């Protein structure tokens, strides 16, 4: 399920091959098509993109990304698409062979193929693209075309809203140009503040969850959404479930 920031647009998947948008059937694939979720949506909900796996022959399937009902090129496999907040850029990883991955940005291949690759991240206006690659036992973070050597392969990468700051998540830590977080058992939704100077994320150690802002941790219940920064960077919000009650909590950030 996807929801626009203002709540006016909603999209979801049903029966593996049917995409609903604002409660109407928006796109229906072939009977054997399998749509992956979550669907990716621009901030205002005007652009919607999703991955489809489609049988080609009895022994072969192809993967493609559909954006606003328009099918992109088919590959051996691909990742879930990422839509920039402004809806102008769609990016995803794709491959023809399992050991040769690349990034596709608005239908065009970007960068050199790599043995391994993360899903891409985009700045809000889509102008900055970031992803990490693994090739010949070397790990690189590529941010806006600039290469940064890494000691380990990230699980995911993320950018500040304007793309000026980068970060990535390893098995147990969040790492930015400013340093490395403590280690946790699980890390959820790392996000830069609007000015790109701070990172917040939900983290689990054992059964205990904390809302991390830099090295400061605040105990929290297991989140069902977020954390997300307020536009002015002074607050963090997250969703929590207490019994049958769905709560939104807002924490002031000094």
């Amino acid at each position, binding site marked *: *399920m*996807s*929801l*626009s*920031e*203002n*709540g*006016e647009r*909603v999209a*979801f998947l*049903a*029966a593996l091959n049917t995409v*609903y948008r604002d*409660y109407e059937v928006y796109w229906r694939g072939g009977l054997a098509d399998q749509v992956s979720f*979550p669907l990716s949506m621009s901030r205002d909900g005007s652009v919607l993109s999703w991955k489809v796996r489609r049988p080609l022959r009895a022994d072969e399937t192809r993967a493609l990304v559909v954006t606003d009902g328009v099918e992109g090129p088919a590959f051996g496999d691909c990742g879930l698409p990422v839509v920039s907040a402004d809806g102008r850029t769609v990016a995803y990883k794709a491959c023809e062979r399992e050991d040769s991955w690349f990034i596709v940005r608005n239908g065009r291949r970007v960068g050199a193929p790599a043995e391994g690759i993360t899903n891409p991240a985009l700045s809000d206006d889509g102008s900055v693209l970031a992803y990490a690659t693994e090739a010949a036992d070397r790990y690189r973070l590529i941010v806006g075309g600039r290469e940064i050597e890494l000691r380990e392969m990230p699980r995911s990468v993320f950018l500040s809203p304007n793309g000026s700051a980068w970060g990535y998540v390893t098995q147990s830590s969040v790492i930015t140009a400013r340093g490395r977080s403590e280690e946790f058992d699980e890390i959820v939704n790392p996000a830069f503040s609007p000015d790109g100077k701070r990172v917040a994320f939900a983290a689990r150690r054992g059964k205990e969850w904390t809302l991390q802002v830099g090295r400061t941790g*605040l*105990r929290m219940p297991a989140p*069902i*959404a*977020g954390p*997300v920064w307020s536009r002015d960077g002074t607050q963090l*919000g997250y*969703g929590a*479930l207490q019994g*049958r*009650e*769905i*709560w*939104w*909590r*807002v*924490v*002031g*950030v*000094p």
Partner: protein
Amino acid sequence: MRRLLLASLLLAGCATSGTPQFEERLVDVLPEGKSGRYYRFTGDGQRVAYVLFDGRERDRVVVNRIAGKPMELI
């Protein structure tokens, strides 16, 4: 539903052990006997959409309290 009336009311609270002040808002209540998944909030946290399950694999309901239009999918 009475508790839902609190949705517009921000309740001031205090986190454990002297940690910063927070506010919390009751946004919705799941119907009795059902569970939710895939929660999505609006940017301001005022509203939520989610998939509602009644425990049977092929009988699920998508509820968007925003539009107030529950929809049954088979």
